[in-house]
């Protein structure tokens, strides 16, 4: 069995995998052996046993998430939603999966919907992903024509209709309850929890939202079993992960590697080390809303607990590299400008606090910082960064690179403020 289940149809193949190629490589075998033949509860137990954790950033155990869906009663709809709104800065993994192997996601969604008795599914995808949108729609049409989607799948009692919903923008749509509001045609403001979507989600009905990469994994767990999945990981967590690196590395890219692969191996072997003339200063391990780590953390294995122990989060697993010729203050100012712009505006600490932080950072970067600015930034990072002070995790996520940046790159902030200029003399 392959040790790269998610990209086995992608590596070394230039085109995208259509239905015929997908089936010739073993695709839809998991659906054929499961739908109408295996008890959905047994699939749920398998997922729990495999301990698949969410690949969208939070790492919540997927089987546990599904187990909160109440038993099916009556004929009301139950929904499964693929979160394909990949918009975390520095993240470029789900686009690859959807463009190159769209049926893998669809098969994972059929199996997941069967497990939670969902009859309607949506792929909530960002509007800029035109190629992925077209290929998913083509794949859904082909699967429907072959009886793999739609009414009475493979002549069973199970029916599942799948739609592609093209979003109209905004990062906050990636937050699962904001996503549900957006699917309902509303402003994408996150909802208060409880109730949780599993109980009352889309149009008040039981709903599961999972990341694209998470759903793709379901196919292979059902096909190959929980023990196989667990054996793929090098540490505590099972499976593989799409890891990536962007910034001034020799070969930026995205690679499927065992969960628990050391950061050093990803950066040095797969990304080819730093680009010529650049040194590693720090990095965000899994997107914009994760804490900085530094070269001293290179031997940390990339899995949920170990990255957490190092003081950050694995997040999406796609690393953003800060090099020695780029300004840490400038990078953090860029990040906070993004977070301020993407606030939904619902709660005050986020709506007012993030632009305040951004303005201070822009001022420091422009050479107009004041010594007191450091205290304000520290206080804001603690206040806005505390979960519970804001309506959702957007602003606390925004504070992760700031708080850790203040810790690791304090000297650079001070140099800016005391020298009344950015020492990098970066001409734009």
């Amino acid at each position, binding site marked *: 069995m392959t040790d790269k289940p998610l990209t086995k149809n992608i590596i070394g193949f230039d085109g995208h995998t259509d239905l015929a190629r997908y089936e010739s490589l073993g695709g839809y075998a998991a659906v054929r052996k499961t739908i109408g033949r295996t008890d959905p509860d047994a699939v749920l137990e398998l997922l729990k046993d495999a301990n698949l954790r969410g690949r969208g950033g939070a790492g919540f155990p997927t089987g546990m998430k599904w187990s909160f869906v109440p038993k099916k009663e009556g004929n009301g709809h139950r929904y499964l939603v693929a979160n394909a709104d990949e918009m975390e800065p520095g993240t470029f993994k789900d686009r690859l999966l959807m463009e190159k192997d769209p049926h893998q996601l669809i098969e994972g969604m059929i199996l997941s919907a069967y497990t939670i008795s969902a009859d309607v599914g949506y792929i909530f995808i960002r509007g800029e992903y035109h190629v992925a949108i077209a290929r998913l729609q083509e794949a859904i049409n082909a699967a429907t024509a072959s009886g793999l989607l739609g009414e009475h799948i493979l002549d069973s009692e199970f029916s599942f209709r799948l739609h592609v919903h093209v979003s*109209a*923008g905004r990062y906050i749509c990636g937050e699962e309850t904001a996503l549900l509001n957006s699917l309902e*045609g509303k402003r994408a403001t996150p909802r208060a929890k409880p109730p949780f979507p599993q109980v009352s989600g889309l149009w008040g009905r039981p709903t599961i939202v999972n990341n694209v990469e998470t759903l793709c994994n379901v196919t292979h767990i059902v096909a190959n079993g929980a023990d196989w999945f667990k054996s793929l990981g090098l540490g505590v967590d099972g499976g593989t992960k799409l890891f990536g690196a*962007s910034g001034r590395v020799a070969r930026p890219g*995205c690679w499927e590697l065992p969960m628990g692969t050391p950061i050093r191996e990803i950066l040095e072997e797969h990304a080819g080390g730093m680009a010529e003339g650049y040194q590693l200063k720090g990095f965000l391990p899994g997107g*914009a809303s994760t804490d900085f780590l530094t070269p001293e953390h290179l031997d940390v294995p990339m899995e949920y607990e170990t990255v957490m122990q190092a003081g950050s989060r694995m997040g999406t697993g796609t690393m953003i590299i800060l090099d020695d010729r780029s300004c840490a203050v400038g*990078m953090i100012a*860029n990040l906070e400008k993004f977070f301020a712009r993407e606030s939904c505006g619902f709660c005050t600490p986020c709506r007012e606090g993030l632009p305040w932080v951004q303005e201070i950072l822009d001022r420091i970067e422009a050479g107009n910082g004041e010594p007191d600015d450091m205290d304000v930034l520290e206080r804001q990072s603690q206040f806005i960064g505390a979960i519970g002070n804001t309506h959702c995790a957007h602003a606390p996520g925004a504070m992760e690179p700031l708080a850790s940046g203040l810790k690791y790159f304090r000297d650079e902030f001070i140099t800016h403020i005391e020298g009344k200029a950015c020492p990098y003399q970066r001409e734009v």
Partner: protein
Amino acid sequence: MSNIATDNPGNFLTEQELAEIESEISHLPNRPSAAIDALKIVQSYRGWISDESLSAIATLLGMSAEELDGIATFYNLIYRQPVGEKVILYCDSVSCWLMDGDKVCKKIKQKLNVDYGETTADNKYTLLPVTCLGDCDHAPAMMVGDELHHDLTIDNIEEHLS
């Protein structure tokens, strides 16, 4: 006061637009749920959402124009002002910034003589910033209309906009 768009959306929206919007509504539990889809459909034909379009869609969906405007202005891919023939969505997120994306953007602004939010004098391009396009291993990146352009440099930007 009579308003042709609000009193009867069928007088303002085309048959094609109405058919596509009704098709979306048909698989939704209520009409306002089609708000974003309807805005996108009308925008796909007209390039942007005018006040008249907004009123007609609101009436069609049984909601107030104000409520629909609250939705329309929330989403960055719904345009409430006219845009050029193609919208340039320029990634201003962190990976592109690290690869000198801001310098390339400055060159674009100079070449097209526009700032963010503006349309070129020949009405060909509107320049807007966008969040990470998920193409970070080929940063800097941008969308020109529906097409992704990447590995941008100050030297090759001319060919991407010709």
